[in-house]
C-alpha cells in the first residue's frame, strides 16, 4: 500500500481536484484505491455525492480499525472507495494532541487498511498544524500543487523549510504546477525559477481549465466525464509520473 497526500498550506490551489482525479485514475487502472477526505469542508465527499458524515466521530477516527472501516463508502467507480469527510474533522488536531505520539496517530489509524488497498489518497485541509505533521508522517508521498505565483511559491518554500526543521523525509515532498495559465509571463517565469532551484518538481502540469472548475456542477472526476479533454490528459500524465515515482520508492 502507498499513501499519497495532496497538501498545501493555502486553499484553492487545486488539491481536491487533483486528489479526486488521481484517485480515479489509479482505480481505473485496477488498483484498489481509497480516498480519505480529511478536510472539514468535505469537498471531495461532495464530488462523490456522498453525505459528509463520519459516524464514529473523531474518537472513532483515532481508534482506527473497524471504526474507520465501517465508514467507508463505495463510490460510483469500481475499485474506488471513499472515507467521507465531516465537519467534526476540524477537531482532529485537538483529538490527536490528547494521545501519546500525537504526530503518528493518523499513521496508526490507517494501519488496518494496509492490505485492503493498493493506494490511499489523503485530501488534506489547508493548515500547517498537528494534523499536517500527522499527514507528513503517514504519507509515502506528499504532493503539493503550486500555482506559479510569487505568494504560492513562497508558501512552498515555507513548507520545504518546515520539512527540513521537523526532520520529515524530504524526498517525500513533490510539487507540481497547478492552475497554470501559460500565456501569463509571470507563470512561465516562476515555473522556470522553481524548476531551476529545486529537484522534486514534477513534469506534469495542470493548466487552468474551466472543465476542472465545472467538476462542481457534474460532481464527477473530469477524467470520468470528459476522458479525452485537455484536463483529463493533464491528470493522466501527472498520474503516470507519480505512479512511476511510487514504484521507484519500492
Amino acid at each position, binding site marked *: 500500500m502507498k499513501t499519497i497526500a495532496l497538501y498545501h498550506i493555502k486553499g484553492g490551489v487545486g488539491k481536491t481536484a487533483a486528489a479526486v482525479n488521481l484517485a480515479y485514475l489509479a482505480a481505473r487502472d*485496477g488498483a484498489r484505491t481509497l480516498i480519505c477526505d480529511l478536510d472539514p469542508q468535505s469537498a471531495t465527499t461532495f464530488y462523490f455525492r456522498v453525505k459528509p458524515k463520519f459516524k464514529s466521530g473523531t474518537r472513532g477516527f483515532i481508534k482506527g480499525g473497524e471504526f474507520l472501516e465501517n465508514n467507508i463508502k*463505495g*463510490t*460510483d467507480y469500481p475499485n474506488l472507495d471513499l472515507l467521507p469527510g465531516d465537519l467534526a474533522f476540524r477537531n482532529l488536531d485537538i483529538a490527536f494532541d490528547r494521545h501519546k505520539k500525537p504526530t503518528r496517530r493518523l499513521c496508526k489509524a490507517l494501519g488496518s487498511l494496509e492490505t485492503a488497498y493498493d493506494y490511499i489518497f489523503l485530501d488534506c485541509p489547508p493548515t500547517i498544524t498537528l494534523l499536517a505533521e500527522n499527514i507528513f508522517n503517514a504519507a509515502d508521498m506528499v504532493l503539493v500543487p503550486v500555482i506559479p505565483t510569487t505568494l504560492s511559491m513562497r508558501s512552498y518554500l515555507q513548507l520545504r523549510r518546515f520539512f527540513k526543521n521537523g526532520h520529515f523525509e524530504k524526498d517525500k515532498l513533490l510539487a507540481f504546477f497547478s492552475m497554470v495559465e501559460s500565456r501569463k509571463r509571470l507563470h512561465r517565469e516562476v515555473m522556470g525559477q522553481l524548476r531551476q532551484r529545486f529537484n522534486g518538481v514534477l513534469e506534469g502540469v495542470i493548466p487552468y481549465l474551466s472543465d476542472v472548475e465545472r467538476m462542481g456542477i457534474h460532481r464527477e472526476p473530469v477524467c470520468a466525464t470528459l476522458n479525452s479533454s485537455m484536463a483529463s490528459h493533464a491528470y493522466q500524465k501527472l498520474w503516470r509520473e507519480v505512479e512511476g515515482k511510487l514504484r521507484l520508492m519500492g
Partner: protein
Amino acid sequence: MAMKIYQDPAGEWLNEADITALLAERFPVEAGSRRQRRISYYDSFDWRLYRKSLALIQSGQQWELVDLNAGETVLAKAAHRGAARFAEDFPESDLKVRLGKILEMRALLQLCEVRIEEEYFRMLDGRQKTVARVIRTRMAAGPDEAGCFLRISPLRGYQAAAREVEVLLEEKQLAHRETSMYQLALKLSGKQPGDYSSKFAIELPPELPAAAALQRILRELREVMQQNEPGVIADIDSEFLHDFRVAVRRTRSALGQLKGVFAAERLAQFRSDFAEIGKATNLLRDLDVYLLDRRHYEAMLPETLQGALAPLFTHLEAERGKALRQVTDMLRSRRYARQMARWEAFLAQEADSAPGPDAGRPVIELARERIRQRYQRILKRGGKINQRSPDAKLHRLRIDCKKLRYLLEFFNSLFPGEKMSRLIKQLKKLQNHLGRFQDICVQEEALLAFAGAMPGGSDDSDRTTLLAIGCLVGMLHQQKQEVRSHFAETFEDFATAENGELWAHRA
C-alpha cells in the same frame, strides 16, 4: 462468498427495458456503461491452483491470482507480456513467488478463454449517487456456447440497498443460484475442475473377485498413460513423462506382484511390452531430473565455480532434446499403437477369460496376503543392512519398498483410511531416505561419466568445469555417507510401528 446469479427461468436474455422497469419499482435507475473484456483462466494439468481454491486469470497483460473462496478477490497480480509457461517466466513479484511455491515444475495451461460483455444498471439515491449496481452479463466461450445472467454488485457501505435489489429480483421469480465466474467459464468450455490427479485412487468392493479388481486397476492405469501422452509429446512440462512412467511402473508392478490372477502365458507378452516402454523413457527422465536440479547443484558449489557448470547443462540440454525425440517417436510409433491396442483388448475382455489360480479369490484376501508377504520381506532384508552393506542391498530394499507402496495404493480403499495413511506416511519417509541414496549414487556415476567424456582439458574453461564436477562428486559422496549413517534410525521407525495388524488376520 459465492456470486449469486439471476436468470430468466425460460433462458431468455432479459432486455434492457425489462430490467430497467423491474428495478425502477424501487430506485431511480440509470442504464449505463458497457464493458467488454476477454479473460483466460490458467492452471496446471493436475489443477494445483484449483486444489488450493485459487485461479490464475489473464486479461491482456494483466495476470491475477484470485481466491475462489472469496468471490475471486485478487491476492497478487503482475503485468507480463507474452506467454507464461512456468512460474519463473513472470517478472519478480509476489505473484511469481506464490505461483512458484504451488506449481513447482508444472507448467501453466490455458483452461479456457471467455468473452465477457457487461452492461451496468445503477440504482441511485436522492443525491444521484450509485447505491447498488446490477450487471447484466453475457459470457461466451465460443460462437455457440454462451450464458446470460444478472448479478448484483454491492457497494461498500450500502449493503441495505443491495439487499433490497436482491429481494426485488427474487420476487420477480428469476431463477437464482450461487456460482462463480470461474465455474461458469469452465462449464461453458466443457472443463471439469480437478479431473486429473497424479494420485492413484480407486474404490474396490472387498468381495470383488481378484481378476475383476486387477482389471479395474489396470484400466485406470492405462487411462493415466493416455491422459499424459499428449503432454509428453508436446513437451509441456516434465511431470507428464513422470506420471506416465509411474503408471507404467505401477502396471508392471501389478502384473508382477499379482501373478496368479491371470494366466501366466497371457501376461508374458504384456510384461515384456511394458518393460520395453519403461526402458525407452529412462534416459529422458534422468535428464529431466538433472535439469530440474540445476539450482540445487549450483548452490552446492562455492560461488567462484557456480558458472562453471554451464557447459555441463548445455550438454545435458542437447542430450535431452535427443532423448525427447526418441520418446515421442516411440509414442507415435506403429509398434506402440499395436502394443496398446493389444493391451486394451485384453482389458476389455471378460475378467475371467484368462484366469489364473487366484482369479476367483476375493480381492481383500489377496491384498492382505501380498501386502503381508512384502512387508515381512522388507523387515527381514532391512534388518540385515548395516554400515558395511554394499550399495546394491540398499537398492534392492528400495525396490521392495516401492512395490509395497504400489500395493498399498492399489488396495487403499479396502483398509481403514486412518491407519493406512499413517503407514503410507511412514513408508514414504523410508522411501525418501532410500530414494535420496539412490539419486546420489546415480548422480555420482553420471557426473564421473560426463567428466570422462569431456575433451582433454587443455582449455581453461574445460578445466574449471572439470574442477566443478570434481567438487560436486566430492560433496555427493559425503552426502551419501551421511544418508547411509542415518539409515538405521529411519528403518527402525518404520519397523517398530504397529502396522502388521492391518492385514495380519482375516477380518
